[in-house]
């Protein structure tokens, strides 16, 4: 009983810190911290979405950056058409309203996830990993080839999307918007994981044969999980495009997929909040290492190798171990 009330206290504590962060950052003369934290929140959403199918569902998707990038481009393309006044395909008008672009990003990435998932989930294991990677790379090439939307150079979004009543040019406001969305997202994710659907997905990871033997059609459930996961990544991508005021094919590059997986494993596969810790760890690590040397990826490689080979359960498990045994 005290275990879970400890956890709740910890959660409230962390949330309080997150709430106060921009103010604290200003106080200590580190306004860049707010930007860092915003990126952590956004990547946390993306990594947690991936973790749902990867950590809980056992589906190793190496192409999740595709949905991240699609979310970003939905925002970018809608803004582009808003700025130019011409509707997309002559039909759909552009917009700069966050309340429209976010759901649009979620919807579009969901559709792509449905198509890619429908094909990829016909396979499993090593094949599945390669196929998801290949499809993501295909979309990368697609966006590189769209000169109208920046091509290789990416698409600049002059102004962050608007939210009625808020000044979205203020970095702190953006941070709080992301914080609120992240809080909602994680609350929903928590419910999902503990729902009958979540139960089934976790069951599929443990033994597909057993699940078939109790009458479950694995494919449908995995596909729905894949789509949900894609939508989450799309949401994160849309937020990122707003934050960076930029969408580029790099968001879909396979190395971005790799980064998301690194965040998942750093934080602890198969836990709800682990990916948030993983995102934080990764971004902090990246920032610190990059300030020492331009060859920071070398350091990242070694850290990753160490974590994979010598720790079970990433940082969350290490912390648990350090602060008081297994639950």
């Amino acid at each position, binding site marked *: 009983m005290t275990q879970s009330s400890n956890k709740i206290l910890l959660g409230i504590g962390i949330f309080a810190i997150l709430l106060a962060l921009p103010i604290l950052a200003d106080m200590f003369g580190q306004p860049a911290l707010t930007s860092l934290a915003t990126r952590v929140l956004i990547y946390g959403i993306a990594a947690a979405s991936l973790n749902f199918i990867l950590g809980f569902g056992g589906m190793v998707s190496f192409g999740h950056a595709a949905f991240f990038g699609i979310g970003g481009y939905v925002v970018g393309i809608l803004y582009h058409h808003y700025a130019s006044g011409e509707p997309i395909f002559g039909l759909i008008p552009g917009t700069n309203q966050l309340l429209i672009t976010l759901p649009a990003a979620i919807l579009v990435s969901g559709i792509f996830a449905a198509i890619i998932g429908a094909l990829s989930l016909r396979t499993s294991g090593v094949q599945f990993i390669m196929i998801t990677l290949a499809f993501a790379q295909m979309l990368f090439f697609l966006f590189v080839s769209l000169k109208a939307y920046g091509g290789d150079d990416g698409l600049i979004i002059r102004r962050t999307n608007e939210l009625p009543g808020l000044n979205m040019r203020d970095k702190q406001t953006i941070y709080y918007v992301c914080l609120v969305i992240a809080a909602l997202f994680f609350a929903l994710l928590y*419910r*999902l994981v*503990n*729902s*009958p*659907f*979540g*139960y*089934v997905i*976790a*069951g599929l990871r*443990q*033994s597909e*044969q*057993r*699940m*078939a*033997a*109790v*009458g*479950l*059609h*694995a494919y449908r*459930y995995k596909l*729905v999980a894949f789509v949900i996961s894609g939508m989450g990544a799309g949401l994160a991508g849309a937020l990122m495009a707003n934050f960076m005021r930029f969408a580029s094919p790099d968001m879909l590059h396979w190395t971005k997929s790799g980064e998301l997986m690194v965040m998942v494993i750093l934080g602890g596969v198969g836990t709800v909040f682990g990916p948030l810790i993983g995102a934080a760890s990764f971004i902090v690590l990246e920032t610190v290492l990059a300030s020492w040397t331009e060859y920071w990826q070398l350091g990242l490689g070694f850290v990753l190798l160490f974590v994979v080979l010598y720790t079970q359960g990433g940082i969350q498990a290490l912390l648990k171990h350090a602060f008081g045994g297994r639950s």
Partner: protein
Amino acid sequence: MSTPILEVDHLHKRFGGLTATDDVCLTVEDGEIHALIGPNGAGKTTLISQLFGELVHDEGTILLEGRAIDALPTPERVARGLARTFQITCLLPDYTALQNVWIACQIRRGHSFRFFANVHGQKDLQAEAYEFLDRVGLADRAGELVANIAHGERKQLELAIALAMRPRLLLLDEPMAGLGHVESQQMVELLHSLKGQFAMLLVEHDMEAVFALADRISVLVYGRIIATGSADEIRSNPEVRSAYLGEGDELC
């Protein structure tokens, strides 16, 4: 003459040059326990896998309650009332015994596309799952992770999960495998108490159990059924005796 619950007609399965299932014909009547015995390597588990849909047969028909199920994948066959236990237990290792049964109940009830209900609040499902555990004698191990329960208990859990599906026909693949004498007797008693509630196709090596439980026995050797009949008929069948000579299994 009522339709047998299971009818297998001229089933064939080949793996390259090896014929694993050779023209197998078999019926199981409603409510009966039909045992399938045979030396190691005879193809008993292969047959079970084909009946359950995990392996696709090359020739022949499988009829469940008179309807062909050949084209149906495993989950469909389960929906039609088929269930199985596994010789090498196939359980969800990260879940508790209770959760393993619970998920079977949940799936049977068709609840699984619900995204926001809290699984822990579903007390009626939990109670139902608990009942099945109790039925097989595992009530006191309900909260244990599968990784922590003993082999014999895992076999019992397999049975509990199968019961939770309320099958019409249960395929039991060596439920006694790896059990000690006392545990085997308990399992026999358990199966005996379930007799008549549904039909069973029981694959077993333990002859004591087979003779105690079976209404009819079929003998499978090199993928082929060489005899079917009552316990006495099988015991006195010369072909069966010679098939078992040197196997170390006693018939009497």
